């Protein structure tokens, strides 16, 4: 699948899901999102990467769930009634869930309102750019980088 963050040719605005992680706003390209579900029981998978708490059962389908907090090196998740799992479908046969603290709304950001990040700083590689929005700055997630497993490479 094409890298959804590569929108250089598109002039119109794109839609992002605005989510909160560790009190920061992040934007996830809506094209990736398949579903948003409430927090549910996660089954631990032994020997998995530490940022994968485990798998969930979504209507019979088994989906691995990633903690974005752990992935970004923040404090571990504290599950609240607002905690949600975003179900993404980066590939037709492979779904994955992202645990976020809160899902706010769908926002439109124009391409020219996104500052592309070009630093090679480790943590920042998860961020494709920073978009300006009426309610502040939104870090646009680089989904493929988040999914990429460095240890495996």
């Amino acid at each position, binding site marked *: 699948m094409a890298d959804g963050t590569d929108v250089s040719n598109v002039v119109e605005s794109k839609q992002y899901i605005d989510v909160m992680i560790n009190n920061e706003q992040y934007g996830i390209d809506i094209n990736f999102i398949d579903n948003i579900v409430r927090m549910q*029981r996660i*089954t*631990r*998978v*032994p*020997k*998995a*990467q530490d940022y*994968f708490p485990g*798998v*969930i*059962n979504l209507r*019979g*389908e*088994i*989906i*691995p769930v*990633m903690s974005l907090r752990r992935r970004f090196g923040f404090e571990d998740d504290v599950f609240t009634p607002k905690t949600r799992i975003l179900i993404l479908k980066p590939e037709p046969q*492979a*779904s*994955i869930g992202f645990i976020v603290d809160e899902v706010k709304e769908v926002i439109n950001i124009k391409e020219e309102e996104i500052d592309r990040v070009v630093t090679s700083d480790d943590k920042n590689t998860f961020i494709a750019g920073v978009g300006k929005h009426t309610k502040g700055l939104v870090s646009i997630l680089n989904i493929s980088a988040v*999914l990429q*497993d460095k*240890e*495996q490479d």
Partner: protein
Amino acid sequence: MDVSQYLEVFIEEAKEHLQALNEHLLILEKEPENENTINEIFRAAHSLKGMAGTMGYKRMQKLTHDMENVFQEIRSGKMKVRPELTDCLFEGLDALQEYVDNIINTQDEGTNDNQPLIDTLAHELEVGLKGDAAAAAPAPEVKAETAPAPEPAAAPKASSVVYADHEKMAIKEAAAQGLTTYEIHVDLQESCLLKAARAYLVFKAVEEFGEIIKSVPDAQMIEDEKFDLSFVVCVLSKATPEDLRKRVLNVSEVKEVTVEKVTFDNVQVAETAETEKKEEEKKPVPQAPTASAAATASTQKPAGQTTQKKAVVNRSVRVDIEKLDDLMNLVSELIIAKNGLASISPDDYAGKEKRSAFNEQIEYLERITGNIHQSVMKVRMVPIESVVNRFPRMIRDLSKKLDKPMELYMSGEETELDRTVIDEIGDPLMHILRNSADHGLESAEVRKSLGKPEVGSIFLNAYQEGNSVVIECSDDGGGINTEKVKAKAIEKGTITEEQAETMTEKDFIDLLFKPSFSTADKISDVSGRGVGLDVVKSKIESLSGTVECRTALGQGTTFTIRLPLTLAIIQSLMVIIGDEKYAIPLGSIDTIEDIPIEEIKKVEKKEVVNLRGSVIPLVRMADILEVPVKKPEKNTVTMVVVAKGEKKAGLIVDDLIGQLEIVIKSIGKYINNSKIISGATVLGDGEIALILDANALV
């Protein structure tokens, strides 16, 4: 006509015909006089030619046609089957296979004319006929028939029909009487369903103008619909070619008609030595498909011809594998739902009566889902024959190539396996057989000096054993020289000499399954490149199977492959480790034991237990799985003994739940999957249980 819709059917049938050709040619090679086989071959080749022609694959048609000519001569007894001929025919089959492969990949037959092969065939035909004739009869028989192939490159049409002596005389006589001989080439429409009936009408129409002296193919063949879309009728008539043409075109479903004048001089003559045949053919074959003509003709044909035209009615349907997968998924859902229903205790909702009624219904549902599951599984089952039937041919070729006489004995081809497994198992089996042929069997001289029969034997034996299918591949060759393996392993640095000291025979054999390890002194075309057994192993393990090797020096080697009958739904034992639930496939479980804690001994810092005389290493699952909550130690531990081939291990679990039919699901590719977990399943209450891969733990 757009034939693309028939492409799939064509490919399937072409494969079947090629397979049949291969099989029967192998038989023919051994029993050159087997009439049934020749007929079988001829029929397969003929159908293949017809199909290729219909689909517009001219090159394929041409090659099949030329091969068919050879079969024709063999069938009529004018030619003997010689090794060079079978070699050449096998090459022809390979070339045809190539065409089919090309068609599968690109829908086009490719551009390879295989001219050298066609030339060789023609040469073989010539040599075969001459040689045979010289030995048997004084008069040479030449019948370079080039039947009415709609191939422009074929021989010029005027001389495309071969006439027997008497027929030629008839032409001459007719010319004297002022009759002209015409060859009427008739092409039927591709959509024509009743070809024989159309041909009959054409014959009728032509008869109005004069006497039919010949047709190609002959009347009997036409009546049996053993022809493609075109045939030739030769008639002696006073009418003009145009009249003939018009009359024949009036017959419906006739696509094209060309009428050509034949004179005495441009006729090809087939000199025939068989006087009795002459007798037969002297009787003009006028009313084409009439009973009398059929009777006359059938005396010339080998028996069984007429009976064979009836195809065996096949009570089966071809179904897209995807549709079956969908069905399978639905059945999986059904089983999950059933488990869910069963796990709801009715206590909270109803009185005693209703409770038992509920349980009854649940049991009923269980039975039905079980049966549906089995039925669907059975639908997906394919006999292993479809994979192994190409091996006799392969062994034959290897035997020639390696110059080692060998024979492949197969049994249990009817053993069935899941379609997904069947698709994958071919290559590993081929590797093993090649290994046996190349490394396993000794050359004829060596075998002789060892007092073994000169012809080496390779056995391929398949059978079902419980919930798995076992495929054994063995040879009566030299076996694996473990000393040689040891030396090689040390030389390659795979193991150190100290390690080698402590290794058992079995350990050395296991080395063979390591990547890039080959003991062959010379790398041959056949095997020995060091990719092979490790590929075999990983492939079979990816199918949740196991492969084992047993060998006796000087006596042979046996590879035993064990495969699960199905991959999607399995019976498993549910266990509790820490506070988590896990499933262990029942197929890999040997026994379940309660072991008093004092019986656990330590050998080289590893925990083992002596179970009825055999020492079994223990695996504490709570440690391996790093469960967050550990249960306190008890006086006895529950040990699930799992086996991988002959190796065993005792998995220590905290508790047993019971047996459950589970649907295996993948846990996705993102999560780092250590080999211990082979998948996950959804339990009746929606909870997830991970499936432990016992193979990775032993």
